[in-house]
């Protein structure tokens, strides 16, 4: 059964305290792995797509990496405005399967 698991469920950081979010997956035939950011009361907002093991992508303080079994979203020197829920999803066949998300809180 295709499955996506994110950890931790919640993460509290101090401003400037770097950390990583994990997304592990078991799917038959990965076609892509996606990271989204979701703010309260809003729909998910696209961040990155990764297609193959070893691939990395960066955007401001965020960096996403991919291995054959998991992906990491590294957050360097986070700011309070980085507080949100981060969702991971994998494409298998024609559909996206989402993890449950990691709720990130960054305190000043």
């Amino acid at each position, binding site marked *: 059964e295709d499955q996506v698991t994110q950890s931790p469920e919640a993460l509290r950081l101090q401003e400037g305290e770097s950390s990583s979010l994990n997304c592990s997956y078991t799917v038959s035939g990965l076609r892509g792995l996606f990271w989204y950011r979701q703010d309260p009361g809003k729909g998910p907002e696209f961040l990155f797509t990764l297609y193959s093991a070893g691939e990395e992508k960066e955007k401001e303080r965020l960096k996403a990496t991919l291995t054959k079994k998991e992906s990491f979203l590294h957050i360097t020197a986070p700011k309070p405005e980085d507080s949100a829920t981060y969702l991971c999803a994998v494409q298998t066949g024609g559909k996206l399967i*989402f993890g449950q998300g990691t709720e990130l809180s960054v305190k000043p």
Partner: protein
Amino acid sequence: DAGITQSPRHKVTETGTPVTLRCHQTENHRYMYWYRQDPGHGLRLIHYSYGVKDTDKGEVSDGYSVSRSKTEDFLLTLESATSSQTSVYFCAISDPSDRFKDHGYTFGSGTRLTVV
């Protein structure tokens, strides 16, 4: 939200009544999706459409039906609402021409549905 609108944004309805949620897009994207989001479950696919009048079931389709008579509109109907269908519903769009190539899905702002 990049040309995708959901209506209504909020709705309270009674158990046993039918409810229809609307998703409207102005991007002319071929694929449209309905997800529900619940604490502890993340986003789960209800139904999706790969063209006008072409739809298919997702993982949690029981109690829901959909229709797509025009490219721009995708309707989700709860045939007889139950308390277990209280949730936040999201519509998403994508297009096979650039699907998943640094765009992913584009999501609407969601509809918060409460069944009492």
